[in-house]
């Protein structure tokens, strides 16, 4: 759908109809202290040449993966994005800030989202997907709210400490005003969620783990799901690296009732950490409890295939305070990017790419161990793992920064018990030389 701004004439006509003399008059009810009057405090305009030079100077002061060897993942991953993707998603029909509601003018966008839903449910091994939500953290939060709607009489959710710390913070914000309580599950010395205390938790509505978890370890989903189901609770599997499911079977195949998480890996640029893609998939029997929008396929009166928003009667614009969620927004363009990315790679391409990530990360893990680094967790990993580099971790970060190497995320601030450890990520973008150089530098 094209973006057509209002002209001055449009604005004057609308003001005239409602009887306001000017825009200031229209906004007169806003108190002065809440209203910015006058111009913004900005420097004067620059010519295009000067502006480009200015921006290039600003950019040269940052470390970015085009000019540095970055082993930082932790929820936001450096993957190669096929050129076709940027070309297709920059088409003005897709490049709109809003989800178009009217099917008569937005079949392309609606079909794009429908294809996204189809592809992502296949990757996740589940039956239905919504049109996506904001990001991984909001997907997890909405998932746990949904389990409370389904398990109405229960009021506790068990959440693994090995879920991304930022996701857990946002979840706590969602739950703060609610009647329900979050119970944290510790992690074992293998780096996996400790579910041994589940039975002691009364009123359990859901169990949530991340896989691969924040430490990169692959959780035994099927076993956790069985334990959750035995207690009458739903199983929620969250993730920050969906590419892992190019190799692993989808969470739904292993008994998860909800698969939710961040989809940035699927063709979305890192862009300083956002915008993201909140993936949300579940079983068909819960479709009426899904938050957010859903696009469905139908046919018109001539029998031709078409796409429309489906189950909107549960959404906020119709059901107001009783809606399944009142944060239904998504970044639609990101969902379309993911659809195009998955279509570009295909099922076998996703599998090969995931294998490449696994192999490269495995190689680095092995070489680091040989060079004297220690790996605290024995559980299997995908493209990310925790390591304690030889020597002093803090000085290492500064020393390597000077050589344009970012050796991963120091875990001190997130898990004080893992002070001195780094979370290291290796994707297909790293060459063997990059890996060898990191090993050489950390042992220097």
């Amino acid at each position, binding site marked *: 759908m094209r973006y057509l701004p209002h002209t001055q004439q449009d604005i004057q006509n609308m003001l005239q109809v409602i009887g306001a003399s000017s825009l200031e008059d229209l906004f007169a009810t806003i108190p002065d202290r809440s209203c910015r009057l006058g111009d913004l405090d900005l420097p004067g305009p620059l010519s295009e040449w000067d502006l480009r030079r200015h921006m290039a100077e600003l950019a040269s002061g940052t470390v970015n993966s085009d000019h540095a060897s970055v082993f930082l993942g932790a929820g936001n991953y450096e993957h190669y994005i096929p050129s076709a993707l940027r070309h297709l998603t920059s088409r003005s029909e897709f490049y709109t800030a809003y989800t178009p509601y009217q099917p008569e003018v937005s079949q392309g966008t609606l079909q794009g989202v429908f294809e996204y839903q189809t592809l992502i449910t296949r990757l996740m091994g589940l039956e239905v997907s919504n049109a996506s939500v904001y990001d991984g953290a909001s997907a997890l939060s909405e998932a746990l709210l949904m389990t409370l709607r389904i398990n109405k009489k229960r009021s506790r959710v068990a959440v693994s400490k090995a879920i991304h710390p930022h996701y857990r913070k946002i979840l706590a914000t969602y739950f703060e005003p609610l009647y329900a309580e979050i119970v944290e599950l510790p992690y074992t010395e293998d780096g996996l969620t400790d579910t041994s205390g589940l039975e002691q938790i009364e009123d359990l509505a859901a169990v949530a783990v991340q896989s691969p978890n924040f430490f990169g370890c692959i959780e035994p989903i099927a076993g956790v799901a069985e334990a959750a189901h035995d207690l009458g609770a739903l199983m929620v599997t969250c993730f920050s690296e969906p590419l892992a499911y190019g190799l692993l079977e989808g969470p739904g195949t292993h008994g998860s009732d909800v698969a939710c998480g961040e989809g940035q890996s699927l063709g979305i640029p890192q862009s300083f950490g956002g915008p993201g893609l909140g993936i949300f998939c579940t079983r068909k029997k819960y479709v009426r409890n899904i938050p957010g929008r859903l696009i469905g396929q139908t046919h018109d009166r001539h029998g031709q295939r078409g796409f429309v928003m489906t189950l909107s*009667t*549960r959404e906020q614009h119709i059901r107001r305070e009783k809606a399944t969620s009142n944060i239904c927004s998504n970044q639609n363009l990101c969902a379309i990017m993911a659809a195009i990315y998955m279509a570009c790679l295909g099922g076998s391409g996703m599998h090969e790419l995931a294998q490449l990530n696994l192999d490269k990360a495995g190689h680095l893990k092995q070489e680091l161990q040989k060079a004297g680094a220690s790996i605290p967790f024995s559980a299997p990993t995908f493209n990310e793992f925790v390591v304690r580099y030889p020597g002093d971790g803090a000085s290492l970060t500064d020393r390597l920064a000077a050589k344009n190497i970012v050796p991963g995320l120091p875990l001190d601030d997130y898990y004080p018990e893992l002070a001195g450890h780094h979370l290291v990520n290796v994707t297909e973008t790293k060459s063997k030389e990059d890996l060898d150089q990191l090993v050489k530098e950390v042992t220097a």
Partner: protein
Amino acid sequence: MKEIHELHLPEELKYTQDHEWTRGTETVRIGITDFAQDQLGDIVFVELPEVGTQFEAQDVFATVESVKAVSEVYTPVSGEVVAVNEALEENPELVNKDPYGEGWIVDIKISDSSQLESLMDSTAYMDMLKGEE
């Protein structure tokens, strides 16, 4: 949509302001009225409570979803759900076709039969609907 005089309002039933009907005195059968089903249009889903659930009067015990809206159904009496109309899971359109018969929603064993006294008879309900027009 139906005109007021076309509505079917059986005389033996009691009616609520929220457009539910009740039949019986100890175990009470509850559904939605001909007016309610007609206003909602084609019903595509009915969310039923579980047998054994306790409700207080004015609690929501079910939701009825049509192609254009989702509406709550309120119980006018307190008590325990002793039966639900499972046929609605596969055939929600029964509520449209036969709202007082095969389209019933639940049976509630009531704990305080005096709550039935405040409900309307068919004439009073019809008067209320005319006022809504």
